[in-house]
């Protein structure tokens, strides 16, 4: 443990406490500092990094950081192509990741990612009290009390950025014979083994991909047919990086992909029988194997928060949140990091946002902190006036270059509002679901969306008389540049009622 003298944030009363030192916690703490809000950051871990201190198991991420793009690395626009750096306003603190990567891949290694988070914290002055475990929660008047391994913290608002981090597997009979993804061993130890992987999402395919060379046979099984991200036009489905086992299965190369539910696992001497039942006709199918690994996901470690009114849903036990990531049942409790995936947004054509990944969660965290400090500490957002003649260009430029709109498509938007006095103001980046579902002054928001054919285009939402009653799509463009005469004309017609 670090000596006491070097450890910041002793137990006590703080305006805000942030729990967690992964990307979500560090991003939230940075945003609080930028807005001048005093806070403490505590973490059970000995160093920053969160899940990237251990995972992905095969030590390489599937999120890009492209070093060479059309924009300088110190610009906001570059964030579009750098999914792994946390976001800062100061140019010198932007794009931490490309400088730390060894140049062999546009996907950082796990150690590079961990170093990236630590480096961002160091450069931006985000401090964390490590080795301090949150153990329980209570209310005391208008304060929350966090019981920790170091003592009690009290705060007006708490931000939990504790990840969707607790391994979960179903309690199928025989589950004691099944290892969880997190307990996967070194690849050499699977040499010549018949491997059964429960789960056909990215973690299942990551294991299959990483153990292709060692295992003598791999069966991947779950009730639902697997999907490929190239078909879903989003990050949902198996990513291109892990598709090799799929191709092998198509060619009969020792990998089998089954749609079946897992009923029971029996041990017979040194081998295991996985009893499955086919999803199509219900027929039983037993598979004899040497090892079973469950790539069945993770849950939120929310401890006793449900006792305070935080309702949870789904297998991951995500909290029910507002569009600004505040608990619905326990206002004052906020969430950052991967937990934000519990806020669905519009999910048009079923395409989810990227809130479960750093490149989406970092913007959610910034928006959440902005709304938290506005609601709880009266820190007003900057809403600079915009000249009427410049609105269309501002919005089209955002649709063409804004990293928030491209990394959180159909989820975050750029909004411009007409105030009561007639002034047009730039509202910055907003939650699209909040924008379209709350009454408010006349306004327009632009975002980027993908439809079911994979077409990417700007979408425009106009609020008049307190209501957004339709969406309007602008034409797509071969190189995604919407700063054209045709787009200007189309958008001008849509925003005219707001501007005049």
């Amino acid at each position: 443990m670090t000596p006491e003298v070097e450890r910041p944030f002793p137990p006590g009363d703080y305006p805000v406490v942030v729990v967690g030192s992964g990307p979500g916690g560090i991003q939230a703490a940075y945003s609080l500092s930028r807005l001048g809000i005093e806070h403490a950051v505590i973490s059970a871990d000995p160093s920053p990094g969160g899940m990237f201190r251990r995972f992905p198991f095969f030590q390489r991420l599937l999120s890009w950081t492209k070093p060479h793009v059309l924009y300088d690395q110190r610009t906001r626009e570059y964030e579009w192509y750098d999914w792994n750096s946390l976001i800062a306003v100061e140019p010198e603190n932007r794009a931490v990741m490309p400088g730390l990567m060894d140049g062999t891949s546009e996907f950082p290694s796990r150690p590079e990612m961990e170093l990236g988070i630590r480096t961002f914290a160091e450069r931006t002055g985000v401090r964390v009290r490590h080795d301090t475990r949150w153990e329980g929660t209570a209310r005391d008047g208008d304060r929350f009390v966090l019981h920790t391994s170091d003592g009690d913290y009290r705060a007006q608002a708490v931000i939990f950025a504790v990840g969707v981090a607790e391994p979960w597997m179903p309690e199928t009979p025989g589950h004691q014979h099944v290892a969880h993804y997190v307990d996967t061993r070194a690849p050499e130890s699977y040499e010549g083994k018949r491997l059964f992987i429960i789960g056909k999402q990215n973690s299942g395919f990551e294991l299959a991909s990483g153990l292709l060379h060692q295992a003598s046979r791999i069966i991947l099984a779950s009730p639902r047919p697997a999907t490929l991200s190239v078909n879903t036009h989003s990050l949902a489905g198996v990513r291109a990086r892990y598709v090799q086992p799929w191709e092998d299965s198509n060619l009969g190369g020792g990998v089998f992909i089954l749609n079946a539910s897992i009923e029971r696992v029996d041990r017979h001497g040194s081998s295991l029988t996985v009893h499955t039942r086919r999803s199509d006709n219900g027929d039983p199918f037993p598979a004899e194997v040497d090892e079973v690994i469950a790539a069945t996901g993770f849950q939120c470690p929310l401890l006793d928060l449900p006792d305070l009114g935080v309702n949870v849903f789904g297998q991951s036990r995500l909290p029910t949140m507002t569009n600004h990531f505040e608990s619905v049942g326990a206002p004052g409790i906020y969430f950052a990091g991967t937990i934000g995936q519990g806020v669905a947004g519009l999910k048009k054509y079923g395409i989810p946002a990227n809130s479960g990944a750093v490149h989406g969660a970092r913007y959610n965290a910034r928006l959440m902190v902005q709304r938290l400090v506005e609601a709880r500490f009266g820190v007003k957002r900057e809403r600079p006036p915009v000249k009427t003649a410049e609105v269309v260009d501002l919005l089209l430029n955002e649709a063409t270059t804004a990293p928030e709109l491209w990394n959180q498509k159909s989820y975050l938007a750029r909004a411009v509002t007409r105030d009561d006095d007639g002034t047009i103001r730039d509202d910055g980046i907003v939650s699209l679901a909040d924008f379209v579902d709350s009454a408010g002054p006349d306004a327009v928001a632009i975002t980027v969306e993908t439809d079911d054919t994979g077409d990417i285009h700007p979408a425009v939402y106009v609020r008049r008389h307190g209501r957004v009653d339709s969406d309007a799509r602008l034409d797509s463009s071969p190189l995604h540049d919407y700063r054209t005469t045709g787009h200007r004309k189309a958008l001008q017609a849509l925003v005219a009622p707001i501007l005049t």
Partner: protein
Amino acid sequence: MNSEEVVDELASLSLFADLQRPQLRAVAHIFSEESFPPGQRILRQGFQGSGFYVILEGDVTVRIDGEDRAKLSKGDFFGEMSLLLGEPPVADVVAIGELHVLHLAGPDLKGFLERYPPVMFRMLQSVARRLRNANRLRS
């Protein structure tokens, strides 16, 4: 809810009453669970790209041009009309309190119904019932 609990819930809903447990398990994995705050629209009148929803917990109001027309509760489903017709919804569906639903992406509904004809039949019955009631109101 974990996946077995979702399977239990599905088994109790009339829409899925004709499916066997292994099929229900597949259905539970095909749908995703979502949760919404009070006041949020789940379907939006006039918006493209909507989905199909089954209510697990909570109530919604069906609102047309600002007027509440119907209330839906646990086990009810919505979104299928617009998907079957390939048109934007003609009503808002708004969460009254906290709402917990199963969601199927709009583009997946056709394939889902083709894969599970008994669900298609149940849905057809429900749509027929609604049509009958609408005709009664008109006559």
